[in-house]
């Protein structure tokens, strides 16, 4: 069990070469628009994403992938759920890089797929509960966006870590709740964040790819 947990921790660490640092999930635009100015507004934005946006949908996709649902079908669904051009690229490019690297570490190769599907498929080769995999995945997702916030709001490193720590409860709750559900049994309610991701495409100066 510990050996598998260490594997998962490695896959989801910022050092794993999926290029997550290049994607902000629309956060860069929201910062530019003045919606994110301090630790509290970063925390609440990320809470909305976890509770009402990609968080619960991705957790559900991981759960379905681990439960053995057809990969091609799940990949199609994950792609169709992308809210904008850059959000599709965000999940697909990271998922492809993840699958390539993880395949070199596992007995059975993992097909390229949107990131939550690729992670869920790879995690079939571990003996870990799906809720744990989903929670660690959402933790990595959140930590990556906290890091973007720390650099560009900007916030102090300690403040950033406080934001992440304050979201642990939400991450766990979303993972527990969503991981056993069909991804189409609930919806999203973050049009504001989706629109930020769309406006990101036309920003004059952009440091992130999304």
């Amino acid at each position, binding site marked *: 069990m510990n050996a598998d947990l260490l594997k998962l921790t490695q896959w989801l660490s910022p050092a794993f070469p999926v290029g997550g640092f290049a994607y902000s999930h629309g956060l860069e635009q929201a910062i530019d628009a003045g919606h994110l100015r301090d630790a509290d507004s970063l925390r609440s934005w990320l809470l909305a994403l976890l*509770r009402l*946006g990609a968080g619960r949908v991705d957790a559900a996709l991981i759960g379905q992938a681990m439960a053995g649902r057809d990969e091609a079908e799940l990949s199609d*669904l994950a792609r*169709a759920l992308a809210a904008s051009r850059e959000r599709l690229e965000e999940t697909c490019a990271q998922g492809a890089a993840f699958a390539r690297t993880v395949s070199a570490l596992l007995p059975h190769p993992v097909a390229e797929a949107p990131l939550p599907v690729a992670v869920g498929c790879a995690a079939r080769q571990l003996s870990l509960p799906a809720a744990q995999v989903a929670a660690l995945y959402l933790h990595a997702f959140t930590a990556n966006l906290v890091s973007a916030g720390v650099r560009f709001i900007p916030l102090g490193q300690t403040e950033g870590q406080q934001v992440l720590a304050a979201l642990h409860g939400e991450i766990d709750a979303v993972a527990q709740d969503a991981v056993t559900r069909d991804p*189409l049994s609930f*919806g*999203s*309610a973050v049009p*504001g964040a989706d*629109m930020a991701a769309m406006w990101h495409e036309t920003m004059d100066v952009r440091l992130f790819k999304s």
Partner: protein
Amino acid sequence: MLDSSQIRMQRAAGRAEVAIAARGGRNALCRLHQSGSAKAFLPKVHTPVPEVVFLNTSGGVTGGDRIGYRLEVGAGAQVIATTQTAERAYQSSADVGEVTVELSVGEGGVLEWLPQETILFDHSAMTRRTTVDLAAGARFLMVETVVLGRAAMGEVIEDLAFFDLRQIRREGRPVLVEPLQIDAAALGLRDHPAVFGGAVAMSTLAYVAEEAEDVLARIGSLPESDEVAIAASAWEGRCVLRFLAGDAWPLRRALADVLNRIRGRALPRVWQM
């Protein structure tokens, strides 16, 4: 004797189905079925593209209602479809009202699904599933607008349960899936800029076609204002626009403006302002 099955009978149920096929260079009605409180009719239009108008005669959807609309557009046919009035989700005591919309477009066909807005009343409970099946080369334009409460009456929503699953598939594979869920969790964060940012009216416009990415250029600069925020993106045969507004009326105007630029022809009469 009053048992639960009799109470159920008081709920509205209805189903309207229309099929239109291209025959001899014309778009011909080949099937029309109506039952219960769901109706469909084809008003006289002076263009070759028929308009199909769906109507829920019960005036709205409440718990336990079952309303179904189905529209089949044959290969090479062209159809514009809309609804006669705004759909209203009324207060529900227990059960959920269910609306099913099934649309299909055959090879090379064109469907424009331009229903009027859905108005969600306080303590309403409604689930709507819109499923669109496109054959190869089919084109599909869709607008869905959801309004939280009757703003003109100053209604503030306390709680409701709305699940609106929109799925567009091409040759059986999903190409665009938008599940919107407005419930207590979303309402608790409704003023947050990542959620509705205080808006009470929201729309998604989607165009799915091979040339969908060219549509952004056709729209040009978005008619944004202080009242209506609009964002657009296009990728892989999809073009999606999202709108958020503090009031339904300026949103409708902005939508009509964008639709006119995309379509280049008059909107159905129910849309005309």
